[in-house]
Structure formats: C-alpha cells, structure tokens
C-alpha cells in the first residue's frame, strides 16, 4: 500500500533496543540511547507536521485481518502528537532515573522499553483494535515491574491492579466489539476515521449501552471513581520508573480513548447519562481529594492525588465543548509530566532515605537543596500554579465546563443568569474549583513534612540530586514551564483534532 509511516520507527526503536538488551547489550546505555533518539525522532517529525491540516498525517496502512476490518494503521494528528511527545519524554525521564538492582537489571530495562513501545504504538494507532492491543502490550510489563521490582506489599498491589485493569480491559473490549457491531453490515471496520465518518453521517446509532461499556472500560483504566482503589496501592509499590510510565502515560490511554472515540460517536448518550458521570466525577475530585489529605506516606498520597486529578479530565470530557475538551487534552500532557516528575522525585527520596513516611522525614531540603527545589517546582505544578501548563489546562476545563455542553452554550448560561440557578455540570465545576484548595492542602503539607522544618541528624548527609536524574528533572520542569507560558501552541495543535463533528 502506502509508504511506511515514520511513526513505525518510533515503535520499533524501543523494541529493537529491547531485543538488543536481551541479546546482551549494555542495558542502561542501550535504553538511554534508544529513548533519547526516540524523543529526537519525534521532535523531527513534529517539525514536518502540518497543524493547519485536519485529519491524520504520516498515515500508513497494512491489512491484518481484512475480513474483520482490522488493519495496522498508523497515523498522527495534533492530539496524538501531544501524547507521543508525552510518551517519549516520560520514557526518557523514566530510563534516566531508573536504578534497578544490578543482578537482573536487563529485564527491568526490557520491561520499560516494552511499555514505551506499547504506549507509543497505542497513541500512533488509527485502528481501534490495534490501539487496544498496544495498550495490552504495555500493561503486562507494568504488572511485572510492580510484582517483581516493587516495594512494600508488591504482590498484593500487582494482583489488585491486574484484576482491576484486566476487568477494565475486558469491558473495554466488549465495548469496542459493540462499536464494531453497531456499524452497518458490510461496511464494518476498526478504522477510527471510518467510524467517525459513519457517526457523522448518522450511520452508527448513538447506543447508550455501548457507551457505558466504553466509559467503564476506559474509566477503570483511568481509575474512575469507584474503580480507583487499585491505583494508589499499585503506584505506592511500583518502582519509580514504572509509576512514572503508568501514571504519567499509560493511564492516559483511557481518557485519550474517551476523547477520541466516545466524544465524536456518542454525544447524545454522553448527554443522556451525564448525571451518572458527574456523580462519579465528584467522587474523583472531592471524595478522593479528602482521602488524599488523610495519607501519611508520600507514595500513596501521590497515587491518590493522581486519581483525583483524573476527575478534572473527566469533567473536561463530560462538558463536550471545544474549550473543555482542549483543556482535558492539555491536562493529559500536563498531568502526565507533573506526575512523572513527582514519582521520579519520590523515587529519589526513597532511594536516599528508605522511607516515605511523613512522620520520619523532615527538613531534608537543607541537606539536598536541589531535590527540595525540584520538588517545590513539581508541587507547585501539581497544584496548578500559573506559569505551569497545569494551570492553563485547569483553567480551560473550568471555563469549558462552566458553560456546559455546546448545544446550550450561551443560551443556558444566560438563562442561569436570569433566574440564578446552576445546572448540574456547573455545580460539579464548583466542586472541581474547590479541588484547587484540596490539592494545595495535601501538596504543601507533604512539602512541609518532607523538606521543611529542622533537619534530623540522620538525614544530614543525604546526597543531593545529581547526574542524569538531575538532567531529566530539569528537562521536565522546563517543558512544563514552556507550555505554561505558551499554551496556545498546544491549543493550535489539539483543537483541529477535536473539531470533528
């Protein structure tokens, strides 16, 4: 068919690197080299990308099971590019901060590279089935990383995550099959472009059951309340690079899927079932937010906080207008970078002190000023301080969600102004804005407990952040600041991909 998409190389590089490591290459060097060249390749591709054109670019297609309409289609639009950037950047950072035990570090790096290949493949897929398969490819090494190289009660955590995520994946698969079956006989395909085209012409019925399957399938993968309890435990046990890759990138798969597939295909079902989703969002933001406040350990606190932040993205999705969806998409990136940075620093702290209990830590900014500064940046990015990309995306979600769904955009709010009654999504937005207080409470408390206060004697000789981890941390912060100052660059990239119907 067509020429080979350059996106294929993004997937192949980590895979080839994994093979090389397996064959006995120097695992750390090979992994670093592969993930760095992947990021560079992506940036080169980005310069060739034409954001003004709608639709996917760099498309290549190979039939896999043509009878079923399954094809190996790669391609990228603005939204995928943002996600690919996130994937490659976080992979590089994760490899840079990785410190596996020496005896079997080979398999550790192979697992990281496999996750990387999986997420890149998922975000570069245009075929929905392929998209699903790549996600599964990335999940398995994640479980292994938690179960084998994790800390604490790692077996139980890996188990729980497996049960939840496998269930979620299964429900998702049912939903995707449903989506396939909704298409008219003889014209069925897993090609996303085909599906959206059919939906636009009204040939796919707006079926609420399929939507629910997709919502809960994708939702469980993103720790939608109340299917979130696996996440804090898994992230607490996972080694830092695994937590970075999963919480930062892989988990975004579910929301990406919702924005990509459900938003254009099931707008009416989303509208009809909005109350249910809104209740769950309040659960994600307020309930989980207060649970986060109660945590006494940095790793579980970060795990819960990442669950909480998913609520904002769900809210952006639920409101279904350009502003809110753009905000949600940008938050995929901003949260991914922030949480990756936080987990990286969390790993650095654990590496040095062996504990993450707030009660045992304190004052270590004096011993490790760079680590303290970096964590300060990360905490501020996480609470949505202006200047970081997180603020811009939160702001878009708030503004977008407050006007509600597009059909009623101005009319509804004008009506609200006349009789002064908020509709349900506005009330949920108000709850979400209260989230900025909640996140400030737990983040600043963590910073206070770990880095500020008098320095106990036993932590006075901790080594400071140095070497590659330091470079990775600086780069992550730099990216967050850059897009925080110039969010419009991302908006221009993402909006054309969202403006389908």
């Amino acid at each position: 068919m067509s020429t080979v998409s350059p996106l294929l190389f993004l997937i192949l590089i980590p895979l080839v690197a994994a093979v090389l490591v397996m064959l006995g290459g120097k695992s750390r060097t090979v992994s670093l080299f592969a993930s760095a060249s992947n990021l560079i390749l992506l940036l080169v591709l980005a310069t060739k990308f034409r954001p003004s054109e709608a639709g996917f670019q760099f498309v290549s297609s190979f039939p896999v099971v043509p009878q079923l309409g399954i094809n190996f289609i790669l391609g990228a639009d603005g939204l995928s590019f943002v996600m690919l950037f996130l994937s490659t950047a976080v992979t590089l950072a994760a490899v840079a901060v990785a410190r596996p035990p020496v005896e079997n570090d080979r398999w550790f790096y192979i697992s990281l590279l496999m996750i990387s290949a999986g997420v890149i493949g998922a975000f570069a897929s245009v075929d929905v089935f392929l998209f699903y398969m790549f996600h599964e490819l990335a999940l398995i090494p994640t479980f292994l990383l938690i179960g084998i190289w994790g800390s604490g009660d790692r077996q139980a955590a890996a188990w729980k995550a497996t049960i939840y995520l496998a269930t979620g994946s299964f429900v998702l698969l049912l939903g995707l099959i449903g989506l396939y079956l909704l298409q008219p006989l003889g014209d069925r395909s897993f090609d996303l472009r085909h599906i959206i085209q059919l939906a636009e012409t009204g040939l796919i019925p707006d079926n609420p059951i399929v939507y629910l399957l997709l919502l809960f399938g994708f939702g469980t993968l993103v720790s939608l309340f109340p299917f979130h309890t696996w996440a804090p435990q898994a992230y607490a046990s996972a080694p830092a690079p695994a937590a970075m890759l999963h919480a930062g990138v892989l988990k975004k798969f579910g929301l990406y899927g919702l924005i990509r597939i459900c938003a254009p295909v099931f707008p009416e079902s989303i509208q009809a079932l909005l109350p249910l989703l809104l209740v769950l969002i309040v659960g994600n933001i307020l309930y989980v937010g207060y649970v986060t406040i109660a945590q006494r350990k940095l790793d579980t606190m970060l795990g819960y906080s990442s669950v909480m932040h998913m609520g904002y993205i769900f809210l952006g999705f639920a409101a279904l207008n350009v502003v809110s969806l753009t905000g949600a998409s940008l938050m995929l990136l901003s949260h991914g970078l922030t949480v990756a940075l936080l987990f990286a620093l969390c790993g650095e702290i654990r590496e040095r002190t062996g504990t993450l209990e707030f009660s045992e830590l304190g004052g270590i900014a004096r011993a490790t000023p760079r680590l303290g500064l970096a964590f300060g940046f990360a905490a501020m990015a996480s609470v949505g301080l202006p200047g970081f990309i997180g603020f811009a995306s939160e702001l878009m979600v708030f503004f977008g969600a407050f006007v509600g769904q597009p059909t009623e955009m101005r009319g509804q709010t004008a009506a609200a102004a006349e009789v002064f009654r908020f509709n349900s999504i506005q009330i949920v937005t108000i709850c979400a804005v209260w989230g900025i207080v909640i996140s400030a409470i737990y983040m600043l408390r963590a910073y206070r407990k770990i880095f500020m206060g008098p320095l106990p004697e036993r932590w006075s000789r901790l080594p400071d952040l140095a070497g590659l981890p330091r470079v990775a941390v600086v780069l992550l912060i730099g990216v967050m600041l850059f897009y925080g100052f110039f969010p419009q660059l991302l908006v221009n990239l993402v909006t054309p991909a969202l403006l389908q119907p």
Partner: protein
Amino acid sequence: MSTQTAPWIILFSPLAAAVLIFLIGRFSKTLSAGLAILSAATGCFLSWWLFRQTEVAPQLSLEWLNFGPELTITIGITLDHLSKVMLLVVTTISTLVFIYSTGYMRDEEGYTRFFAGLSLFLFSMLGIVLADNFVMMFIFWELVGVSSYILIGHYYSKDSAADAGKQAFIVNRIGDFGFMLGILLLWSATGTVAFSGLLSAIPGFEGAPVYLTVACVLVFMGTVGKSAQMPLHVWLPNSMEGPTPVSSLLHAATMVAAGVYMLARIFPILEVVPDAREIIAWVGGITCFCAALMATQQNDIKRILAYSTISQLGYMVLGIGVAPTSSEAMFHLFTHACFKCLLFLAAGSVMIAMHHETDMWHMGGLRKKTPVTMICFIAGMLALSGCPFTSGYFSKDLIIEWAVLKIPFLGWLAAAAAGLTAFYIFREFFVVFFGKARSEHAEHAHEQPVSMLVPMLILAVPALFAGLPMIQEHFFTLSHPDAHAVPHLLHPFLYAMFFGGAGLAALLYFKAEKDPVSIPLFANRLYIDDVYFWFVNKIQGGGSIVLSWADRWVVDLVIVQVPSKLTWACGFALRFLQIGSIQAYAFFFGAGVVGLLYIMLSK
C-alpha cells in the same frame, strides 16, 4: 521611551532580575542585591515618568489563550490613573525596602534566595497592578501568593516559619476559590473577562440582580483572602515569621493591599450592585474593629503591627463599600503603605538591635540606644493613629465620614477602632522605647547602618505629609461629604479617640514592667484561630481519615465482591500470573515481539 513600552519594561525587569539571580546569584551576594535593586529602581523611575505623562498611547496586549470570541485571554496592560498611582506606590516602596534589605539581611543565610524571591514578588505584584483582564489578574494573584509563601518560609528550617508559609498559601487559596468562581460567573454572563468589556457590559446586564450580587461577593472572597479580612485573616499575623522586610513590603504595604486595588479596579461594576457593596462594607467595618481589639493585647512587636494592618485594610475595604468613588480607599491605601511600611522597617531595626528578639517585654529604654529608629517609629505611629494633620488623619477620617453617612453603625464602629488604634500603637511605643531595659540585649542595643536608616527617613516624609491637601491633590480626586451632613459630634469624637487612646496607653505603659492589663479574649485573638485549628484537625482531618479507611476497606470490598461480574477476571488473571517464572514471561515477550514484527513486515 514611549508610554507603550514603559509598562512592559516595568513589569518584566523584576522577572529578569529574579531569573538572573536564580541562575548566577550564588556567585556574589552584591550582584544579586544589585540586580534586584536595579530592576526595582528602573521600575520606580519609569513609574514616576509615566505618572507625569498626560497622554498615554493605546496599550498592547498579547494573546495567551484564544478560542475565538467566546473565550480569549490576553496578557495586556491597563494604564489609567488608578494603575499609575498604584505603580508609584509599589515600585517606590519596593525600591526602599530592597535597599533596606541589604542591611537587614547582611548576616542572614539564603541572601540570594531572598532577593530572587523579592524580585519574583515585585514582578507578580506589578502584574496585578497592570492587568487588563480578570484572568491575568488571577494569574499574578496566584503568583504573589507563591512568592509570599516562599518569603514567609525563608527560614524554612524553623517549624513555625514553615507552618506559617503553608497556612498563608492555603488560606489564600480559599479566597481564590471564590475569586475564580466569581470570574466564571461574570464571564458566563457577559462572555468576556477583560475589564473594559465587563465595565461596558455589566451596567446593561439584564439578568437577575442576585446573580451579579453573588458574582461580586465571590470575587470579593479573593480580597478577603489576600487582604486578610475576617474570617480569612488568620494567616497574616503568622506571616510575620518571614524576614521583616518581607512583612513590611508584602504583608503591610503592597501585597495585602492588592485585594483593595482589585476592588477599586472593578469599582464601576460594584457601583451597580449595591447589595454587594453593603456586604463589603460590613466585612471591612467588622474587621477593622475586631482586629484592633486583638492588637491591644499582643506582645510581639511585629504581630501588633500585623493586626494593625488587618484593621487598616478593613478601613480600606469599608471605604470601597461606602465611599462614592474608589479614590477614598485608594488614598488610605497610599498613606497606609507609607506609614505602615515605615513602622515595620523601624520594628525590623529594633529587632536587629535586639538580636531578633520580638517580645516587646524584653525590650525597653531603647530611645537612647536607637534614636533615629525611634524618630521614624514616631512618624509612622502618629500617622497610623490619626494624629491631626498627618497623612493617616486625612485618609482615615474621610472613610469614617462616608461610613457614618452611609451605614452609621459601621461609621461609629470605625471611629471607635481609631481610638483602639491610638491605644495599641502607643502601648507598643512606650513599652519598646521607654521604661528600663528589661533584658541583656536591650542594654546593649545599638543603632543600625545607613542602608537601613536612609530608607526609613525617606519614608517618614510621606508618612507625615502625604495627606496634606496640596500634596494629595496631585494624586487623587477625592470627594468629601457635605460638611453639614456629617454629624457634628464626629470630629470631636475622633479627636477624643486619638488623645484618649494615646493618653490611656501612656498612663498604663509609660513605666510598666509588665502588662498591667490582661484580657484573655483579645490576647487569644477572639479564639478564632483555635476554632480553625479545631476544625482543620478534628473535622477535616478526622473526616478524611474516616474516608480513607472506607476507601481501603469498604469501596474496595464492594467493588471486588461483585463476584458474578468478576469471576472470569480472576480466572483470567490467575492463569496469567501463576506461571510465575521469569522464563515464561520472557517467552511471552519474545512471542509478542516476534508476532508484532511478523505483522508489521508482512504486507
């Protein structure tokens, strides 16, 4: 230099200074202080220059976010009389405090970090002053919050400083919660966040009046947080944990006044929402009285001034609520910035002389040891307490006059607060500078270097004289109430309050060895802090622990124990994990990779 570029230079030179200090400041203390002072002085010079320009070119604005007509957010400049006056206040006082800081911080650790923080603060503050829309103001609003957090926590190894910074940030965020909602409400009613757009859209607004009232009160919540009005005032006294120049610049003269400035900026909107203004007036009036009560029983020289700041901010907020224009509140903001900044600088000078002792009962007799400091303190004190013909006398009395006309109860309350003001500040004065030295340090106290004294002496001039009619008319167009309408009793009452308060303080404290008065209710700050402490620890903390427990044991259980739906999943997972050897995993990986390669390469 044009009136178009000058504001941008004023705004961004402190940011440039902050970044430079952050990057290269560690090489030289002098360099970091120099960069900070240079940027502030540039801003100061340009602000005065701008102030004298009568013609102002149309201002630029840069696009930050653009979704078309529904939502466009810019970073742009407003340059009108209001922002010009505020620019003068902020840059001039910043320059003086920066210079003072070189003396105050000379032996302190984190010298460069301190100046980077100050420069960041100045940038954020100028952003608020120059903002041409609500979102931009909110952005810089949050940034002053974080610079305040950094500066309060300067001595971060001290538990109290670390806690104070955290508390300040969180309490401000509670105010910001309302502020953000208010912006959302105003935006969804008018479709714009730009001040110019709002000002033209709101007067013709045809919705429910209660909608606008709610929106304005929510926006006002931002002021309640930032300007430490009751009930969100608790963070300000604790913020005194920061170095004294920070208390002086941020927590007295400029940052806390940002809330008042914001109200002045949206005053044309408030004018059409009388209910909101009444609420604002009540909050301000009650704050100014209660904070003055609390100040009368504090013993820490900086905390007395902190409660005094809350009280004076209350006057300004009251002024927004009752006066016919925003100039009256801004006038008090202007004079207060001068005299309160001066008082803090003097207090800092005393503290350095006392080796960082802040309990005034360990001082005493400092009038001979630090005479210049005392003179400066007196200048600030007279202005604060409303001594006739000092700056505070003109600005405070004007607000009280309007308040008595509009809401008599609040007016008389504010007048009574003026008496308390005279009392608490004279109390501090007598205890610190008179009597006998009550400690070792007090006996060996010494005067401070020129770098600290000069800024104080410069500030003493406007503190005393800025209120004089021939000076104030250059800055403000004030409206005075009709002389016949004001109750005849008011002015004699105010004189009585000043002399009564000062006299009573002299009587009780002139030679006091320890506090002859003890009112636990005031000393314990009306127990408001304790209520918060109880709420945060017991209600919020307890509640979240219960939720956390439920999350661990109930939610999980309910979800997992829906077995009919999950049996298959367990089986699936079991099969997957129980193979359990690394070779098996390796086999799966290998198989997967090979399979994928096969798929990719076979067309």
